[in-house]
Every structure is written in structure tokens, then in C-alpha cells.
């Protein structure tokens, strides 16, 4: 069993990162929806709606990493 560092109550639960978006930086280019189809859908105006699923290592995490790396506006992040 590993030792989990003490965190505030607000962010206790998620230890896996999630795909997160800075909507103020996003310009709706849409590459993310192609690279991470299981995590990103586009809304009626072409802007990404991002799933907040915690990402275990594996296929979904790889999709997220590809989308983060490819975003021309650097609007996507993997963060807890």
C-alpha cells in the first residue's frame, strides 16, 4: 500500500489525471475531437466538450496525451 499525501477535502478523490480544457484559450480548432474521440465531442458551435473521466494508463490516457500534444492553442491539459 502506498502512502497518499494529505490533501484538502475538496480534491481528495481523484488521483488519476483528467483531460481538462482552458475554454478561454480554446479557439475551437477541433483536432482534439479527432485524436481523442472517446473523450472529446464537439458542441453545436464546434467547441470541444471534454469528458471528466479519471484516466488510468492505457488507451484513453494515450488519446488524451495525443490531444494535449496536438492542440495548436495549448488549451488542453492533463491535470488532477
Amino acid at each position: 500500500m502506498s502512502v497518499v499525501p494529505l490533501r484538502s477535502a475538496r480534491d481528495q478523490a481523484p488521483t488519476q489525471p483528467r483531460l481538462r480544457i482552458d475554454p478561454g484559450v480554446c479557439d475551437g480548432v477541433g483536432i482534439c475531437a479527432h485524436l481523442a474521440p472517446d473523450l472529446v465531442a464537439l458542441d453545436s458551435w464546434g467547441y470541444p466538450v471534454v469528458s471528466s473521466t479519471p484516466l488510468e494508463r492505457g488507451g484513453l490516457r494515450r488519446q488524451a496525451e495525443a490531444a494535449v500534444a496536438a492542440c495548436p492553442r495549448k488549451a488542453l491539459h492533463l491535470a488532477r
Partner: protein
Amino acid sequence: MSAHLRVAPDTTRVRLLDGAAVLPAHGTESLTGVARQDLAAHVAEHGSSVHSGAALIAELAAVSLTGRGGGHFPTATKWRAVPPGGTVVVNGAEGEPGCAKDAVLLQTRPHLVLDGLVAAIEAVGARDGVVWLHDGAHATARSVSAALAERAAAGLGDPPIRIVLAPDRYLSGEGTAIIRTLEGGPTLPRWVADPARPWSEGARPVLVNNTETLARAALVALHGSEAYEPTSLVTVVSMNHRAVLEIEPGTTLGGLVAQAWQSPDGHAPQAVLLGGYGGSWIAWRDAAHLVLDPEPLRAHGLSLGAGLVAPLPASACGIEESARLLRYLASQSAKQCGPCVFGLPAIAELAADLTAGRLGRSGRARLDRYVREVSGRGACRHPDGALRMWTSALTALHDDVRRHRRGRTCGAPLYDVLPLPEGAP
């Protein structure tokens, strides 16, 4: 009453105001009803021994003080999260067009607010303070300037405090927009990965507190937590004037409206918008007995928000009024996030179509879909608030909605009831 039973002025419980302040429907330039306390009057009522530090933060936690700008986040938690060496801001840029409680405090109790600011600066180990005001809030800025001059002349030894003026926009009072400005950027909200650390990496930490919150912190710092009474400031909006009152715990929405609202048609209102223009509509039958304390409000999924109490006259149309507020809120977007830039105006347009009796079945489905798509997706909570207000209107005012769905308008004689800034769309 015999002499020995006469009750002395209640010195055990302290209050912010000693009456109701009255303002016109628009602006905060001509306030009546509550006199301004200069430094001498302030010290006579509250004394001048402000205690601070970790003890004050513990007391703020003990009295469950929460942020009165609308978020109601625990103040002590926020203060404990800020590293030393930064800036504390008292946010007096009340963006809500209906609300005026912060202006009333800064114009009539400036020294209480400034005592709260100084106590916060000491408690979190900050270096300086900022009073953040709208550019057009002339009477408020005059009051704060005069108060700062009085304190300097009296040699109070306050840390450096300066006034910073923000553009007269709805979102200028948003916390991250303030921080961004103080970091040299534009006065626009921004997305933060960690809401507990809203300043930029490497920048000085900034603690933003609402005006009423700091005035309440000052009451605790001056009188101790035993003397603190968890009252609330509210702004009650009538068509020709607004009243800012301090309400006691246990006050019902119905009682407050009966006391402080002027009906334009002699009838009770049909609903009340509570919290702000991004708050919630409550049907009158549910509002009358609703207790305006944090617990019962939370149990109903409601919040006192920024303290707006805006009754809807019986002879006005709630859907038309909500669509009008939605159009205004859409126009006040910071124009940064796609869902807000494109989504809110599209929703506002469909809402206007609904009001005009022009929205068919497919249009209504589109309106519902847009609301679902935009919710929860801005860098700030602006679109969420706008959609909360609209969604609550559809529930609380469903009779109005039904009348509009029959392909015609309801024909209510009163319109443009709730105040919007001059020149609003």
C-alpha cells in the same frame, strides 16, 4: 416599563447598518436613509482595537463567515490557503445591476470595510491592500478616498492601501479578472486549474474578498465572535427605487418582500428572483415561507448569492423579463470562451422567440439542447449563472411558459421591470 427593567441599548450584538438605505432604480450616486460614519463616529460605535492573526481566522471559521459576493465560500478556508507576501483586495465592483449593498457599505461604513481589509492583510501576512471599484462609482470612490485620508491624518498606521478603478462592466468584479488586472493583464476572467491558487505561477498571491464579507470580518475583529450576529445584507428591488436592508436570521422571503417591496399594481408578486441575475426564480407560493438562512436555502438548492431580492409584479411577464435578462447577460460575456460567445446569444435569441410566441417544437428542443451544452463550460461561472436563471424561470413560471407556447404572447401590461444599466441591449 419600570426603570429597573429598561433594557440598555443592545451592546452584545453588533450590526452593519442602523436602518434601510434607499437608492434610485439605477446607479449608486444618490443614497438616502443611512448616514455616513466618519472615523470618529466609527470609533465611537466600534472602538479601534482590531484583533487579527490566526485567532481571527479561527473566529471567522467559528461564525461560519462565507463570501457575500455570491459564492458563499468559507472565508476562513480562503484566508488559510493564501501564502504571505501578497495583496488583499476588497471587491466593491458590484456587477449585478440590481444590487447595491456593497456601495451602501462603502458609502456609509467605509471605516468598517477598511478595518476588515487591514485585519485581512495582517491575518494572511499580505503586504498591501486594494479597494477595487467600478470606474463610474463616483460617490463610492469619494467616500473611500475621504476615509483613507481620515485614517492617514489620524495616524492609524494602516498598511499601504490604494484604490483601483475597473471598467463599468458586469464581469469586472469577477475574482480572476481582478487578479489578472493586478498582474498587468486585461480585466477579464480566466480559467484556473486550481481555484485555491487563482494567481499566476510566480506572481504575488492575491486574496479577493467581497465588501460585505470584509465588513463582517471587521465586526468579528472589533467585537469578537460572541457579539457577531449572522445577519445578511439584501437589496430589494422595486420599480422606482431599491432598498438595502440588513435582515435577521430567520427572516422569510415573504416577510421581507411585504416589508420592503413596493408593488406597482397592488398585488403580491408572482415570483421572486433571488441572489442575482444569475440566481434563481422562486414562485411566490414557495417564496412566502422560505427562510433566508443558509441551511434552508441550501436544502432547496438555493443561495442568497449577492443578496438580490427582485420580486416580479403580478402584471408583468416572467418569461419576457427572463429573456430580457438573458439578452443582457449574453451581452456582458467577456467574449473569451466559445460556449459563452456563441452559446449564450443563441440561447438568448431562442428565448426571445419563445417570448414572442414564435418558437415551435423543434425550436424548443434546440433551446433545451443548447442550455445543456453550454452549462458548466466557461472559464468563469457567468454562463452557468445566466442559464440557472433561465432554467429556474421555466420551472417557477411555467404558467407563463404555457401561455407563450400556445403561439401567442401573454399580453402582460408591465414590461422592463428589473433594472438594467443605461444603454443595455
